[in-house]
């Protein structure tokens, strides 16, 4: 490969190498992380979408005290301009001495008290967001939070924005998902109440999952983002079971199961029609009921047929800043008869099974990673893209129509697939 060419590997070659032999170029720990607009959500999840800071404020009525050097709160200036977040961020800035000695810990309870007295109305709880500095200092933030709670008279919880542990056992976005449910206290169960766990924004209103659950007799479906107030949030403890729609919420669900004895069922977001159907059947099996999803399946199937007639030959490039697993989405599009020439994604154990399948159905699909330094030399003329999906993919093919597919309202199931195709059609 040319010294000045973006590194890629074909799906066939990557699958042949196997999960234990992923090239260094696709492993972020083996090279510097290249920063392009395509990598922004990797490098700074707090700046775009739901990073730890925004996610920590998912509890209704909560405020956040960011305890960190000024640099860690800098991009929050942007967040504070978003309507729901203005006035909910506070900062306790660490100085040079703090980051060496940890003396800032003594000031936190008093700072929390000041924030609680200042904020009107009184916050339901205070989230203390700490960063790499306290990760390295080994701060026992649980203890500090208990002390702060005693001083301020409101619940105080830690949010760990530890970028250093991004690929660790409990990455920051997994930890914060656990934190936001930590205030729930055991309540009497209601058999007709279900929680949907996974995201910090609601799932799309027209998602068939709501109808399916209602048809099963569920009367109340809780999502943290739809809780109007703290009491409604606390009502999530009454759920009969949790539906986990994002694997990053697994730890939170396990914690809820342990503390509140609410079991969970995990579903995966998919874009392959047969897999969506199969998953609903499996859900029915787990609940001991029959789920009839034929109406939505048929409607979606017909939509796909029509879409194929209208757009028989499309070639795609797929990024990773989107509400999908890039590789699963590629498999889906290939299954619907299209070509996927390029994927800009992060290879992991979770998605490697998809890569093996890709190797069979589209062996020459190029797999790039946004993070690798040679992406400096990416040349869009090497590969055709009639349309790109994902905000990052747009960066590489600026002249092709783009579907960002990264809205905060979350797609799922047949409705998600249909909406994606509608947006592709609009973009074309």
């Amino acid at each position: 490969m040319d010294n000045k060419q973006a590194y890629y590997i074909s799906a066939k070659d990557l699958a042949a190498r196997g999960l234990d032999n992923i090239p260094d170029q696709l492993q972020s720990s083996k090279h510097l992380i290249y920063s392009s607009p395509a990598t922004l959500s990797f490098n700074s999840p707090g700046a775009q979408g739901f990073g730890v800071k925004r996610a920590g404020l998912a509890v209704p009525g909560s405020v956040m005290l960011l305890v960190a050097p000024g640099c860690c709160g800098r991009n929050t200036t942007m967040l504070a301009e978003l309507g729901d977040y203005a006035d909910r961020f506070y900062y306790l800035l660490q100085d040079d001495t703090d980051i060496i000695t940890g003396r800032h810990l003594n000031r936190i309870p008093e700072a929390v008290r000041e924030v609680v007295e200042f904020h009107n109305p009184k916050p339901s709880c205070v989230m203390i967001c700490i960063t790499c500095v306290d990760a390295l200092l080994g701060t026992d933030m649980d203890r500090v939070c208990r002390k702060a709670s005693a001083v301020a008279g409101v619940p105080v919880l830690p949010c760990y924005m530890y970028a250093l542990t991004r690929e660790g056992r409990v990455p920051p976005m997994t930890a914060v998902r656990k934190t936001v449910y930590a205030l729930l206290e055991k309540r009497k169960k209601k058999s007709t109440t279900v929680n949907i766990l996974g995201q910090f924004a609601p799932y799309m209103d027209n998602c068939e999952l709501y109808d399916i659950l209602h048809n099963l007799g569920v009367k109340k479906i809780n999502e943290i983002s739809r809780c109007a107030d703290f009491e409604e949030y606390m009502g999530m403890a009454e759920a009969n079971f949790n539906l986990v729609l994002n694997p990053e919420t697994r730890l939170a669900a396990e914690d809820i199961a342990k503390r509140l004895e609410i079991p969970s069922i995990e579903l995966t977001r998919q874009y392959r029609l047969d897999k969506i159907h199969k998953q609903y059947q499996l859900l029915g099996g787990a609940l001991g009921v029959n789920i009839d999803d034929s109406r939505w399946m048929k409607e979606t199937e017909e939509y796909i047929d029509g879409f194929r007639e209208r757009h028989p030959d499309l070639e795609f490039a797929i990024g990773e800043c989107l509400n999908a697993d890039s590789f699963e989405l590629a498999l889906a599009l290939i299954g619907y008869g299209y070509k996927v020439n390029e994927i800009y994604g992060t290879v992991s154990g979770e998605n490697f099974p998809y890569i093996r399948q890709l190797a069979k159905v589209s062996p020459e699909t190029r797999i790039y990673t946004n993070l690798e330094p040679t992406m400096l030399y990416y040349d869009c003329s090497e590969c055709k893209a009639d349309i790109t999906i994902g905000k990052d993919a747009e960066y590489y093919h600026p002249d092709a129509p783009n579907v960002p597919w990264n809205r905060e309202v979350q797609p799922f199931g047949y409705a998600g697939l249909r909406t994606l195709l509608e947006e592709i059609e609009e973009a074309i």
Partner: protein
Amino acid sequence: MKGLLKVLSPFAPDQSGAAAVFYDMGCITVICDAGGCTGNVCGFDEPRWFRNAKPIFSAGLRDMDAILGRDDRLVDKLRLVAEKTDADFAAIIGTPVPAVIATDFRALKRLAEKRCGMPVVTCECTGTRLYDIGEEEAYMQLVKTFADTSAEASGKSGILGVLGVTPLNISSIDGDELIRQHYKSQGYDEVYCYGMGAGLDELKLAGCAEKNIVIAPSGLKAARYLEKKFGTPYELHYPLMPVNVAEAIKGIENARVCIIHQQIAAEAVRQQLEQKGCDVTVASFFEMKKDLRRAQDVALETEEDYQKLIEEGGFDYVIADQLFRRAVAADCYKEWIPMTHFAVSGKLEEAQCAL
């Protein structure tokens, strides 16, 4: 409480300042972080990046890299990039992570230069300090490493150097062009805006400039160094003015005014107002250099300092970034004249003119 911000949000940190100075230098910039600091620089504090992304890399540090101090790994990763680019040098910028683990930047520089075969400059930023400190260090590292008098041999003359030109200081991504035009109209053949536009080749000629202009406090230390080493005189002067401020101050006379900005920009506005009999206080959360500071000027440290200054200062006019406005009662001044400071609000000035 010192360090507690209840209304304001943090200003641009030192690593953003350093990265801004290196941005147009054609170097490999490595931010020694876990990823978030780089994201802050690229996604927020470097407005040029979305228009013209330059090679900025994150070291991608993970917990064990920090705990074990694996600098050699960082250098190996840098070497991989150096082999595949035409960059003339590399710049490594610190963040809170190396600050906590006390990374030896001198050793890191030597190791990196040896293994990568190119000059390496380092800035020991900590993320706890403000952008102007980072800019100041970056300028110093650059002039100490690269500035010489080679232009004399090449016969170049009529050079004016301008220090402190970064979007963080001038709140614009094309204001450097206005600055060049302004000084060229005064007879200079070449105007090098270090930080915006001028690259390493121009920086190497810094020792031959006829004069340096310092438009922000962050450039002053480097100007003094160049004066000492090469005898280059310097002047403090801010050549730009936001159009709305220029318009607004036309109608102000004999008033009490407070200007909050980077010190040299604020001073430029003060000089205009003083010609009209105004009593002007300059305040700043950033460096206030003695050269320009007057008895009434205020170096702000805390949110409370700022609130007290405005609410008890009895000012008719406040000229400052809009972000500051929300922290004070609206009835404690007569009129607020917005003067955007990118390092404060992350916003760019809508229109500027040369003074």
